């Protein structure tokens, strides 16, 4: 009986300090670090004079904000890929749609301050000779409505796509390539000026959000802090979901979908649900990203972008939420640094990073610690023979 009691304790997911066994299981310390850094960086930007050695420049703040949005995006991909084995090569689409919804709101906030001074139409519509706002732009001047759309549009798209695909049992690479086709089609569509989203130039030249000047330091810090909070929130929620029985079912679907069905789980429902959840996280990330970088354009739909997200997750360590976040932060930081330090050769460095991580850190950066431990315990295990059954079955499940 005491054993069963201890089992209860073990499975009460509310205790966030638990789950140390698996890498990346530590939620509270991570969230604490994240929020502490946020508070410190924000304070250092707002309170310290620029001359102070501890001053954090606004450039750094926006950069951090961008990284954190990317981290959320990586988290979204990890939830479905790492845990459910659905490799989405089109998650950038949901990110971009969320971004566009936010962008539309910001465009409408410009009002008559555009270059043509039109009270209602964004500049690109004026110079393309549009006479009135298309119906899908209506209501986007309301913040609450725009935020609703941030969630609703990508959510709905994910729902329809997921419902179709999972019900028809489209799996593995077929699903991956279809997600890629989805984002590619959207890329081409948004390029078209007729779509009414500014074509290739996208939406830009934003002025303010909820009445706050987007270019002021306080607004930037606030956006950064909100992003950090949202990341923490989605992280905790996702962690909670993955610790619940639902999380176990999701992993079970990854490893043996047919078996799960024979146990009575309607796996397509689970997958659709998770896909929509993940798409919404991506959309929120996109919505937070846009005001911080100041532009949203169809480039965000490009398939290569979506592939890159997957790579952040893989670099960090898939199947661990922290891994996804760490991967996104690290790769993007590396990109920022490399493009400035070695503008002509940074692709060599980044490419080599990807190759080396795959070869030497099969479980990503987060797995380094575990791997080191295992390495010392058993020095001469060869890489192809030590593949665990987990990996073998993950192969079936996801490719």
């Amino acid at each position, binding site marked *: 009986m005491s054993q069963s009691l201890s089992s209860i304790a073990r499975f009460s997911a509310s205790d966030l300090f638990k789950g140390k066994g698996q890498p990346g299981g530590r939620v509270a310390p991570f969230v604490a670090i994240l929020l502490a850094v946020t508070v410190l960086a924000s304070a250092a930007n707002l309170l310290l004079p620029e001359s102070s050695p501890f001053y954090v420049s606004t450039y750094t703040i926006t950069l951090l904000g961008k990284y954190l949005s990317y981290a959320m995006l990586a988290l979204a991909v990890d939830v479905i890929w790492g845990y459910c084995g659905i490799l989405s090569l089109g998650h950038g689409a949901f990110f971009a749609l969320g971004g566009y919804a936010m962008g539309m709101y910001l465009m409408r906030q410009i009002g008559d301050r555009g270059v043509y001074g039109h009270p209602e139409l964004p500049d690109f519509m004026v110079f393309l000779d549009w006479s009135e706002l298309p119906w899908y732009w209506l209501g986007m001047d309301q913040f609450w409505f725009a935020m609703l759309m941030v969630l609703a549009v990508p959510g709905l798209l994910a729902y329809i796509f997921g419902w179709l695909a999972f019900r028809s049992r489209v799996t593995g690479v077929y699903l991956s390539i279809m997600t890629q086709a989805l984002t590619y089609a959207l890329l081409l569509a948004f390029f078209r000026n007729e779509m009414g989203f500014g074509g290739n130039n996208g939406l830009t030249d934003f002025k303010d959000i909820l009445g706050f000047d987007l270019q002021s330091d306080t607004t930037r810090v606030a956006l950064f802090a909100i992003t950090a909070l949202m990341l923490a929130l989605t992280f905790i929620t996702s962690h909670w979901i993955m610790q619940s029985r639902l999380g176990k079912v999701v992993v079970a679907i990854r490893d043996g979908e047919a078996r799960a069905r024979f146990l009575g789980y309607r796996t397509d429902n689970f997958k659709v649900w998770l896909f929509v959840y993940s798409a919404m996280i991506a959309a929120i990330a996109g919505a937070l990203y846009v005001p911080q970088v100041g532009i949203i354009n169809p480039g965000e739909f490009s398939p290569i972008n979506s592939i890159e997200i997957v790579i952040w997750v893989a670099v960090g360590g898939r199947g661990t939420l922290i891994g996804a976040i760490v991967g996104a932060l690290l790769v993007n930081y590396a990109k920022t640094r490399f493009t400035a330090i070695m503008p002509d050769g940074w692709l060599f460095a980044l490419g080599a990073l990807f190759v080396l991580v795959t070869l030497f850190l099969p479980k990503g950066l987060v797995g380094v610690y575990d791997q080191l431990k*295992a390495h010392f*315990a*058993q020095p*001469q*295990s*060869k890489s192809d*023979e*030590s593949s*665990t059954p987990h990996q073998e079955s993950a192969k079936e499940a996801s490719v």
Partner: protein
Amino acid sequence: MISINNVNQLYGGTQILWDLNLEIEAGSCTCIMGRNGVGKTTLLKCLMGLLPISNGEILLDGEPLHSRNAEFRAPAGIGYVPQGRDIFPMLTVEENLRIGLPVRKSRTGDSTGEIPEKIFELFPVLKEMLHRRGGDLSGGQQQQLAIGRALVLEPRVLILDEPNEGIQPNIVKQIGDVILKLNEEEGLTVILVEQKLGFARRVGKEFRLMEKGRVVASDKMANLNDELIRQYLAV
């Protein structure tokens, strides 16, 4: 013929085989028995080079085998029928059998490039199913295919891991006959993992009992008594 000396094996952190020693005589038919999970399959995989051993040695005719690639086993004359059959599921029955032809050619000089008729005589069902995908076959049919596939190699040593799992009784008997025949008439060395006592007694000449990754008893099959069975095979 085959000597396994002080072999240790680990899966990740857990040790499965512990200083295992085993000697197989040429032309013998040795039956390895033991409860579930004692490491029988693991032992055979080490022998086939499919799992690395952490130390110890495996010798074939005095030559070290453990340092050679898995690919070397088949040309050296070892045929393997794994537990769970491991048929190539998307290859047809014919293709499953053809895989071994190059090795057969190098071993016997048989350059006809045809699957030996002997296989179909032993397992007529394979001929019927020749163009069906291996993965579509029923469990028992797959098992027959797996044995047939190993025999294409014209091996000197045949390793079978629970070959009767899921086989209908008359074919079990037939497999037993085949093994006996190959062993007695053609001098094929047989290593057999088997749980069913009846079959083991009928086919095996020797037995080895395993427990917790070690060989704990070995003797002629005739000497496998109730005491040993209770000690090592009963639950």
